[in-house]
Every structure is written in structure tokens, then in C-alpha cells.
């Protein structure tokens, strides 16, 4: 079986599995977020938090709850990381200065995990203790994902409700999503990964003798449990430095398949929740279709560019295999790279920096699209709905009515929130890149020119979009980079989130206008095509100059 055929089968079977999950997982997610009753454990949590689970919140209160929770998370994780460095550090563990958790790294890492970015400016296996991995990072892997889903659900409630000030209760959403959705699926996935060969232990590691006779320390740890939620919650922070390219994290092709499935399954199932909640499944299918079209195009183009293996060395060698593991081959690596950047995961099973110029551009473009196809858990859906709102606005004017989406009018207030949402990420990326170039914070000697520039673009695109994958090549564990990227992650997560909730609030307040023949249908292919067009054109227009100086200059 040629690598191309294998790649196609890999992708098609994934699509089939995701299609099944859309329906069934989607319905389950809907039941969870729409449920009336509280579980016993949940009631205990609400009592401990002092929350009345049946009191719903206005958008302002919801947003404040999200921010307060996240602030506490960041401070807690920061303290935990610093504590590890100062107190719990095993003497030989931090032998190298590079493996210390300095304040700037602790800040960067805390922000990174709370914002669901999981950008890692450190090597997991050498810098972090098992305790921090399990009690610090893994916890955030769960709750940061739950925050994303909760906000998406709140936005959908905005569409679904009529003349209401209430968007639900953040604490209830957070608890339920964590306990009823993420934990059970992650548990099953962890077992499957262990079956596939992913390690799960609490040892310090084993010493091994390599083929050449050298001694090597093979780090062990609770990898499978971490790996499951890393993918499921579109987090992406690897237990090991090389992430899913490490054989203990991702031993073979089918675990690779499973990991891609896990990182796309919730984002692809959430449009179903949207369809169910607004009582029109066709709307869910339409959003799914937009996501699927862009995702398939992104995966296909990455594959095509990598399989063409343009460039002097790949042409001479006959394949673009640098930075890819032969366990996965070119195609599956390209698919993983596309999937991880189309979502906000950022896990990698190959090194994007080593991709061909245009193949390496694709992960950047995927992230620049705003990670909406299907995007991060929750963030993908709300990002896509914002794009849909903007599309509705322009398209709605063209049918001669005040634009409305699902009967909700898109007026000045709504378009203000939507515009600010889509302003944030490009602003952070462009300002960040320009600042890095202006201050000389670019790559090492080895990576200069267009490729070195691409690395900088990649870093800020990844941080601002809360992806977390990297082009590597740059030494990012410096105060400047840790601070700058930390800010990009923080603002790139929470400002959009506030705007999303603001939009949800103003939508919920409206009484929907009944649909008629004069209403723009938002479930038809024409609209789906328009949303795809808006996603692509807005991004192309914003980032084309930057892309021209990076991957395009290198690859054309």
C-alpha cells in the first residue's frame, strides 16, 4: 500500500468516525448542557463553591465568573510551578539551568495551560515533576477545555433564548462538562491508549542501553492519562518535549488515528449541540459543513504540498521526511499537522519547522483562519458563529433586510462585539511579529531569512490563537518571548471570550423575528459557501503580506 493510499484510507476512516460521533456524541453533549437535574457529586461541588446551581447568570456575571475562575487558575498554577522550582525540586532533576522554572517560564506556562494553548517553552519530561504534570497541568487540561465549551454553550443559549437576560450558570456548565463529558471520555481514551502501548506509570524512568551501546534514561510517568485529555480537550501540551512524536505518547499508526479522532471529536460534535439548542438541526449541519469543507481543504493541501516534497533536499531524497517519524510517514504526519492546527490543539507528531515551505505554511494558515474548522473545544464553535454573524450581516443587507441570524437581528451592538472578536487575534499576531522583528528577537543563526521569519509568525499565530504548536527554531524560553507570548495567549483567549459573551447577552435579549421567504436562509449551500468565503478572504486579506515575506517567499 503506497503512502498516499494509506493516507487516504486514514483520512476517510477518520471522517466516517467523526460523522458518527457528530450525531451521537453531539446529542449526548446537548443532553448534558440542557439537563435539569444535578448529580450528587455535582451538588456537593456546588455546595462547596457556595453556588446556587439553579440561579442563572446574566452575560456580565457569566463573564466575570469565567475570568475569576481563570485568574485563580493562573495564580494557582503559577504558584504551583514556582513551588516546584523552590521547594519540591529533586536536586538532580534541575541539574541544567534550562530546566529551572523561572518566574517568566512559570508565568508563560500558567497562562499557556489556563488559556487552553499549552505552548511549552520547556521540556516536559525534564522540567516538570509528575506531581505538577498530574495535579497542575492535567487539571487545567480539563477545566480550560470545559471553559471553552461552556462559553460556546452560553453563546448558543443567546441564539436560542428569547427576551432573556440569562445565559446559564457558568459553575454548573463547568462542572457538568468536566464531570459528565471530559472525564468519562478521557478515561476510556486513556485505556485505549494504554492498550496501544502508551506508558502509564509513576516511575522516574528506566535506564536503557542503546544499539550503539550508549546509556539512555527513558523517562516514565502518567503519560496515557495526560495524553487522553491533551487531545480530547484540544490542549496539546505533551508529557514529553517531542509531544506526540514520542513513542511513549503515540506508539503507532492507530494510536495516531485515535489521537486525531480525539482532538477533533468534540469540536466537530458541538455544531450538533447548536442545532439541537436552536431547535433546527439544519443550522448545525450548515456550521458542520463549513467546518468540514475548510478542514478537508486544509488537510488535503497540507498532504499535497508535503507529498509533492518541493525543495532541493526533499527532491534529492525523494520524500519530505525530515522531521517526520517513519512510524507515521509523510501523509499521516501531514494530516496530524493539519488537524492539530485546525483545532487549537497544538500537539505534534512531526516537526512543522521541517516541512516544505508551502507545507509548513498550511499549519500557519490553518491557525490564522481563527481555528474555526473545527477549532478548539468550544472556541471553534463560537469562532465560527462569529464569522457566521459577520457573513449574515453582509449577506443580509444584500437581500434587503436588516440582517438576522436565527431570527436575531444583527445590529450595531452585535456587529460591534463580532468585529472586536475578529480584530483581536490578527492584531495580536501582527503587532507581536512586528515587535519581535523591530526588537531583534528573532531566530538563531541557523534560521534566518524567510524561514526564520516564518518561525516568528508561527510563534505569535500559535500563541494568539491558543494553539500551542511551534515551528521551533527560536529559543523561546527567554524573558522577552515568555512575556510576549504569554500576553498574546492571555489576550488572545480572554478578550474574544468576553466579546462572545457580550454578543450572547445582546442576542438573548431579543425576541426572534419569525422566518419568512424574505429571510436569508442560513442552512443552504449558498450560505455555507459564503461563510467559507468570508473565513478565507478575511484571513487572506489580513495576513497575505506577512505570508508573502515568509513561506510564500520561500516556497514560490
Amino acid at each position, binding site marked *: 500500500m503506497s503512502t498516499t493510499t494509506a493516507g487516504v484510507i486514514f483520512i476517510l476512516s477518520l471522517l466516517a468516525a467523526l460523522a458518527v460521533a457528530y450525531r451521537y456524541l453531539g446529542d449526548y453533549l446537548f443532553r448534558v448542557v440542557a439537563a435539569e437535574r444535578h448529580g450528587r457529586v455535582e451538588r456537593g461541588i456546588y455546595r462547596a463553591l457556595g453556588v446556587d446551581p439553579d440561579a442563572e447568570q446574566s452575560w456580565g456575571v457569566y463573564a466575570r465568573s469565567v475570568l475569576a475562575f481563570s485568574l485563580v487558575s493562573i495564580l494557582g498554577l503559577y504558584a504551583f510551578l514556582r513551588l516546584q522550582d523552590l521547594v519540591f525540586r529533586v536536586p538532580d532533576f534541575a541539574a541544567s539551568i534550562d530546566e529551572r522554572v523561572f518566574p517568566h517560564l512559570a508565568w508563560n506556562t500558567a497562562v499557556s495551560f489556563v488559556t487552553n494553548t499549552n505552548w511549552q517553552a520547556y521540556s516536559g519530561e525534564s522540567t516538570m515533576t509528575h506531581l505538577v504534570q498530574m495535579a497542575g497541568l492535567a487539571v487545567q487540561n480539563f477545566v480550560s477545555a470545559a471553559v471553552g465549551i461552556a462559553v460556546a454553550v452560553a453563546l448558543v443559549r443567546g441564539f436560542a433564548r428569547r427576551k432573556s437576560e440569562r445565559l446559564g450558570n457558568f459553575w454548573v456548565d463547568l462542572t457538568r462538562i468536566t464531570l459528565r463529558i471530559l472525564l468519562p471520555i478521557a478515561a476510556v481514551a486513556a485505556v485505549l491508549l494504554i492498550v496501544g502501548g502508551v506508558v502509564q506509570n509513576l516511575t522516574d524512568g528506566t535506564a536503557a542501553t542503546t544499539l550503539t551501546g550508549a546509556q539512555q534514561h527513558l523517562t516514565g510517568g502518567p503519560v496515557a492519562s495526560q495524553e487522553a485529555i491533551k487531545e480530547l480537550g484540544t490542549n496539546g501540551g505533551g508529557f514529553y518535549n517531542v509531544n506526540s512524536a514520542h513513542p511513549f505518547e503515540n506508539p503507532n499508526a492507530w494510536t495516531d488515528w485515535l489521537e486525531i479522532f480525539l482532538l477533533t471529536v468534540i469540536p466537530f460534535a458541538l455544531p450538533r449541540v447548536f442545532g439541537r439548542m436552536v431547535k433546527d438541526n439544519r443550522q448545525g449541519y450548515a456550521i458542520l459543513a463549513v467546518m468540514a469543507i475548510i478542514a478537508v481543504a486544509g488537510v488535503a493541501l497540507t498532504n499535497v504540498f508535503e507529498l509533492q516534497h518541493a525543495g532541493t533536499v526533499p527532491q534529492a531524497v525523494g520524500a519530505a521526511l525530515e522531521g517526520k517519524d517513519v512510524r507515521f510517514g509523510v501523509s499521516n504526519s501531514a494530516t496530524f499537522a493539519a488537524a492539530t492546527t485546525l483545532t487549537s490543539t497544538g500537539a505534534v507528531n512531526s516537526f512543522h519547522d521541517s516541512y516544505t515551505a508551502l507545507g509548513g505554511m498550511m499549519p500557519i494558515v490553518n491557525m490564522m483562519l481563527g481555528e474555526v474548522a473545527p477549532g478548539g473545544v468550544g472556541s471553534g464553535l463560537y469562532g465560527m458563529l462569529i464569522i457566521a454573524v459577520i457573513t449574515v450581516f453582509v449577506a443580509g443587507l444584500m*437581500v*434587503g433586510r436588516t440582517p438576522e441570524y436565527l431570527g436575531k437581528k444583527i445590529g450595531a451592538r452585535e*456587529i460591534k462585539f463580532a468585529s472586536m472578536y475578529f480584530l483581536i487575534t490578527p492584531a495580536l499576531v501582527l503587532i507581536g511579529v512586528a515587535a519581535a522583528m523591530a526588537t531583534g528577537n528573532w531566530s538563531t543563526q541557523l534560521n534566518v531569512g524567510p524561514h526564520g521569519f516564518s518561525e516568528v509568525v508561527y510563534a505569535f499565530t500559535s500563541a494568539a490563537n491558543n494553539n500551542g504548536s511551534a515551528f521551533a527554531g527560536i529559543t523561546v524560553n527567554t524573558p522577552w518571548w515568555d512575556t510576549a507570548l504569554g500576553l498574546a495567549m492571555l489576550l488572545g483567549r480572554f478578550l474574544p471570550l468576553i466579546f462572545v459573551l457580550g454578543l450572547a447577552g445582546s442576542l438573548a435579549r431579543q425576541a426572534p423575528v419569525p422566518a419568512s421567504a424574505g429571510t*436569508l*436562509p442560513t442552512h443552504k449551500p*449558498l450560505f455555507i459557501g459564503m461563510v467559507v468565503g468570508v473565513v478565507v478572504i478575511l484571513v487572506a*486579506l489580513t495576513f497575505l503580506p506577512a505570508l508573502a515575506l515568509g513561506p510564500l517567499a520561500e516556497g*514560490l
Partner: protein
Amino acid sequence: MTVTSVATPNPRREARKVGGGLLDPKQLWKSLPDALRKLNPATLWRNPVMLIVEVGAVFTTLLAITQPSWFSWAITVWLWLTVLFANLAEAVAEGRGKAQAATLRNAKKDTMARRLIGWSEGAAATQYREESVAASALAQGDVVVVEAGQVIPGDGDVVEGIASVDESAITGESAPVIRESGGDRSAVTGGTKVLSDRIVVRITQKPGESFIDRMIGLVEGANRQKTPNEIALNILLAALTIIFLLAVVTLQPMAIYAKAWQGAAPDTASFGPAGISGIVLVSLLVCLIPTTIGALLSAIGIAGMDRLVQRNVLAMSGRAVEAAGDVNTLLLDKTGTITLGNRQAWEFLPAAGVTPAQLADAAQLASFADETPEGRSIVVLAKEQYGLRAREEGLMPHATFIPFTAQTRMSGVDLAENGEVRQIRKGAASAVMKWVRDNGGHPSDDVGPAVDAISGQGGTPLVVAELAAGQPARALGVIHLKDVVKSGMRERFDEMRRMGIRTIMITGDNPLTAKAIADEAGVDDFLAEATPEDKLALIRKEQEGGRLVAMTGDGTNDAPALAQADVGVAMNTGTSAAKEAGNMVDLDSDPTKLIEIVEIGKQLLITRGALTTFSIANDIAKYFAIIPAMFAVVYPSLDTLNIMRLSSPESAILSAVVFNALIIIALIPLSLRGVRYTPSSASKLLTRNLWIYGLGGIVAPFIGIKIIDMVISLIPGIS
């Protein structure tokens, strides 16, 4: 007595209209001074997109002065032209309104008013005195007297008397209208002229806030406020502008890095070690920000109002015009809107033993003296169906006509023929039947059922009977009078339905009659036996469901409903209360116009959306022109993107800037006229506009820039 002015098109009104949409080049020239005045940043700040272009133009002017070259001067000139063209678009749109305002001002001459002190209703002439004051000094509540030949000094209601008034200054309609105290035709407008008789008017306006003042303000667009959709669109455009501003500003450090790395690349005037030249960066910025829609946005809004004015409709705010496009439900009065003003004879149903022609003849004879529209329609129907020539009243010396009275409820004629008198009566079924019985006759068996059948269909049955000498009276048959639905209404309503608008007919008729007419006209629903309260409740109910409602009205009792409706069109013939309550006034007092108003509202929104799409789609081609032009000198491989094969980097950038400016001028006529609108479903409209303005917006600049580049490359001494 009610007298309706008969609307006949007249040359004067046609002359008052400003050219129907086609742009007269002379108008551009005439608007140039205004356009130049608008370059003032204090004026331009209302339009952030164009303000940025102006700031860019100032910047490039400074650069061109310090480092002169043909390229920097060419770019500078075209950037200034871009701003100027945008101002020109607005100035032209406003110019049309100004012409109309000038006509109106003529009507607002200083008049003297004859104020009555101590006047009260029914007071004798001795109980009050008269004084002469300037019209501008009149206060609300003052009472004035106006006699033939005098100009009414202010808006008000007639409280005594009746007069014919020339309202052509406002409506452009030269046929005089009747204004009388009481009822729904009591409102008079300041500046109009009394042609006959004498009326006493109570002033209802505040000084300086007359109808004409408001009209002048509206057509001039002096206090034009941005409409909700315009505000929302402006926010989106501002966001896009910020993004492109960021993209351009942040480009410089990136470009400097690229240049430093490619040390071997030659320095050029536009791209040296210090980065890209300011001229090129400003050009890129101006090309990317949505200047096309930014330049035309306010012109589109003004032109939308203007299109209404040209149809003799005054919208009190742009918001109302926009709301018209959003309307979900139209409330239409039956009479005058859906049906012709009056019931008309539809068919003759003869009784047994009577031929249709006999019945028609008798009915016609009985109707000669009947000057009501119903009566005349009987004469016409008899003539059309049976060739019965209308006989003039004067030609029938032996006829004595019996007029209709409320007591007898019938009319007729007594014909003296050969010394014998033949009486013919026509009227309400019960009255005529009684007359037949009183005169010894028996109504035949088929008359009763025919009467019932007509009533059941919502028509009005008139029975015709005769009494010839020496015979008992007999019923000849029944005339079926029915409401005649105006031609083309069904098609209009079908159109409305395709647009997603529900039409509801409002009528005072009983439900049976209402249903028959509703079915025939093809409206979606009807409200029968409607009182003003019912109307208001219906509007509230529709709005409760999130729908926007439009209606027309003229009477004082319509005022609450007009105020409640999202679009309330008051008839100019109506009361001042109605005109005050509505947010539009139709000077022609044509209720059917509501449908046109909705279409104009939609067209306004579509024009905005279409040009926004066009503007954004244009950027793709501009990138393909500018990016290779900027960067190919550093990274030659980027010349691959120069798919238009533009002749030189300078020419490419200049072509993009020139195209960007010219497209504004090219689209001025479209923004004034509005994009073509045919009522159809949202899907169809979107498909059509997306093809034309989306795809067209992508393709047009590729062609336009290429052509401009070819022209520029022909100019000697350049590149």
C-alpha cells in the same frame, strides 16, 4: 360631503422631479465646490475611512515635496482625487435635495396672518376682533382667518368653513383640494393658497417647525442622522480599516528584516534599507481599506431618501426608510388600496320572465340621475353588456327622476309615455320588495335567493322593479354590485409573498364580505369590522411576535395605530394628527404606495450590502498587483504572484490606486439609483447579488488594473 382630489399627473410636477437616477455630468461639475469644501477634516471625520485616506494624502504630499518624483506626485494626486471623488458622491446626492428645497423655500415667503382674538366656535363676528401679525409670530393655538387668494400662514386645522386650496407648493399637484372643518380633511399646510371661500384655521405648529420647514430639512439632509444599519455597517468598516491599518503598519519591521537579510537585493526608491517608502505603504493602505463603500455610503443613504421624495413620499427619518425594508406585515385598507373606491355593478340577474336586456334597460333608466359611482357603474355596465346607449338626462323630457333618500332607500324614474306613467325603482332589496308589495305585486320566487346569494358572496344586491299602468308592480331582477379589486393587485400580493411579506386587509365590512374580497385580491389575511382599537391591537400582536408592521392611514382615529406601526404612512389629505403620528407622509395620498416604499427600503439596504461586498472583493486583485510590486525586488520568486503581468512595480501600484479612485466615480450613478431590485425570495436575491457584486468585485479590478497599467506604460518617460 367628501370631495377627493383626483390625482392627475401634470407637467408641473414632472418638472419638479430631479432627473430619475441617471447622473448628469453637469451635476458633478456643479457639486465640485461642495466637494472641495468637504475636504475640511472637521467635516470628514464623520467618515473615518475617507479621513484616513485624507491623512494618507497629506502624508504623501509632504513626502512628494521632500523627495519629488513622478511616482510620488502621481500617487499623491490620485489619493487626493480619491477623497475628492468620495466627497463628490455625497455632494451630488445632496445637490438633488437642495434643488427641491429651493422650490419649497419659495413657498415659505413671509406672509401676514389675520389673527382672530376672542374667536370661539359659533361666535358672531362682533364677538371677536382681527389683527394683522407676521406669520412667523404665530403661536400654537392661535386662530387665523384666510380668504380666497390668501396664503395660509401656518399648519393647522380648519375649524370653520370650507375652501378649495391649492397645495401644489407641497405636493406638486395643481388640482385644488377641498379643506373643511371637522372630519378627516381639516388639515391645512402653511404656504398653501386658498382659492375660494373663507376658512378659519387653528394653528397647530410651533413657530419655525412647520411642515415645510421639516420638508426642507429632510430633503436637504441637513440633520441627517445615521440609520441603525448604517451605524452597524460603519462599525464593520471601521474594524476592517483597523485590521488593514495594522497589516500595513506592522509590515514595515518585517520588510526591513527581509531587506537586511537579502543584502544583495538592489535598493530602489520604494524599498531601501530603511524599509518600504511611505508612498507605497500609504498606497497599499488606501487600496486595502474599504474606500469604495466608505466613499459611497452616505450618498446611498441620501439617495434612498431622495428616491422616496421623487415618489412624493416624505420620510421623517432615514430609520423609517430602513424599517420599510424590514417590514414583515403590511396592513392595507380595503377601500382605495385593494379595491377601487366604490362598489361597481358587476352583473344583472333577471327575474323569471324578464330578459337580461330588459333588466339592464330598466336599471339604466333608473340610474341616469344617480350621480354616485355605483349609479354610474350601472349605466356603464348596461352599455358595455347590452349596447344600451347612455341617454342624456336632458334628452328625456318626459322623465321625472326620483332621487335617493335615506328614508325610501331607493331611487328611480317616472316615465311619461303616451299619457301613461311607468315607474321604475331601484334600491335596497327590502325597500324595493316592500314597494312592490305595496303596489299589489308579488316578488317572484327567484329574486329572494338571488339577493341572498349576492349577499353571501360579499356583494351588494340592488333590486330593480317596475310599475306599469294597470298592472301590479313586479320585480325585474337584481343588480349585483361588488367591490372591484384593482387590476394587478393579486400579482402585487404574490410578489409580496415571495418577498416574505404578509398582507392583511383592513375593512369595516362584515367578515363574509371581507373574506370574499380577501380571497379575490389574494391577501394573506383580513381584519373585518375593524375599529381603530382592533387595528392597534392587531399591530401590537404582530409586533409581539417580532414582526415589523407597515400601514397607511389618514383619519384622526388612525393616529394611534400609525404611531404604533413601525412604518406609518400618513396621507397628505389626512388630519394633522395622522400626519404627526406617522413617520412618512405621502403627498399624493395614494395608499398603494406603501408597497413601493417597502421596495425602496429594501433597495437601499441591498445597495449598501452589494457595494460592501464589491469593495471587499476588490482587495484580492489589489494584493496581486501590490505585493509582487513591493517585494519582488527582495524576493524575486514573489513575481509569480504578478499574474496580471503589470509592466513595472511603480505602474502596478499606481494602477491599483487609480483604479481605486476611478471605481468610486464609476459607482456614483449606481449608488444614487440603487441596485436593480426585483421582488423575489431572499435566496434568489442573494444568489444574484453575490454573482454580480461578489464575483464581479473579484474580477473587475483584475481587468481594470490591467487596462490602467497598459495605459500608464504607454506614457513616455515612465518606467
